[in-house]
């Protein structure tokens, strides 16, 4: 699924100001994979609460993604 592509019913994942629209009814993990995001590299927050990646995404939900990767070449 392309980022921003409109499908219904859907939910939104937001990462660094960019929105990804995903179909409702699948897990958070499957939703991230559907928009080519590796679930291992992000945490999902819904209404300020951390959610696990087996949660079923519901229509109208808006998730915030937190990238977990950090580091440099030192």
């Amino acid at each position, binding site marked *: 699924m392309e980022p921003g592509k409109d499908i219904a019913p859907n939910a939104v994942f937001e990462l660094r100001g960019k929105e990804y629209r995903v179909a409702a009814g699948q897990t958070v993990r499957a939703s991230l994979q559907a928009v080519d995001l590796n679930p291992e590299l992000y945490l999902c927050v819904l209404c300020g609460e951390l959610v696990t990646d087996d949660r079923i995404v519901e229509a109208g939900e808006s998730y915030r993604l937190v990238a977990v990767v950090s580091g*440099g070449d*030192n």
Partner: protein
Amino acid sequence: MRQHKLALCCEHFLQWVPEQTERFIQKYKMFARDERVLLAVSGGKDSLALWDILLRLGFAADGLYIELGIDGDMQYGQRSQACARKFADAHGAHLITVDVHRKYGATIPELAQLTRRGKDKPCSVCGVSKRYIMNYVAREGGYAVLLTGHNLDDEAAVLFQNTLHWQTGYLARQAPVLPATDAGFVRKVKPLCRFYERETAAYALLRGIDYLYAECPFSVGANTIYYKELLGRLEAERPGSKLQFYLSFLQAREDGYFAGAKDDEGLRSCERCGQPTTAPGSCAFCRMWAAVRERKRESRGGSENPVVTQACGR
């Protein structure tokens, strides 16, 4: 946590992380309760999560924040320091701050521009500076041990990089504990080395720790981040791969497959600052600042910056 085939609720996850940390501290004989410990704090999730865990476990850990002078049009340094300061104040913990520009006369971005080592690679001069300052402060402050917030993803990425290049010397020195040396290196330990980065981030979020989400502006395109993403792909397909990779390495290391030089072998004192070094004469940090002095002298037509001149003096 697919690698452990374990699912925990918030309450039990927040108990599990400190319990596991204490287990690793004991398993790898990192430090004892009566030892003075100094934790390098960046304002990021790992170091602040570790500080929180240590305080909850009853370790009176002091923090060390190094102000690097990195702005990157996002006030990176100021925001990092604010997170570290806020945590310290909220927990009544002692935070030592070293401002690289104030103490040595140039910021890390300036240092990168003025040195051959830092040309196009500010992470290199940053790493040399941080390692030097961390050891210096720990040693001068009488701390028995220096802690960093390196997690399993950090360790696996470095291991992957060193394996790709068969850097056997680096492989021999990668461990949860690097012992103190007679030459002057303080013991260094990594209590979070068996936690995935997702777990330390989850811990920080669930604890409500206000950490800096933004990454260092110089880390864009860094090799370790690339390797982390590669390993992340492997992990997504094969849960537990990263953990297995790292633990198998530690076992192989323990079995003697990476016999490196003895800890003190080839170490001597830097002729300028007295800190340990493998180089004859001056250590990398002092050589770096000597080059900066030279460049500044050239650009000023002979007059030295007095602050930079004192950089290595003790």
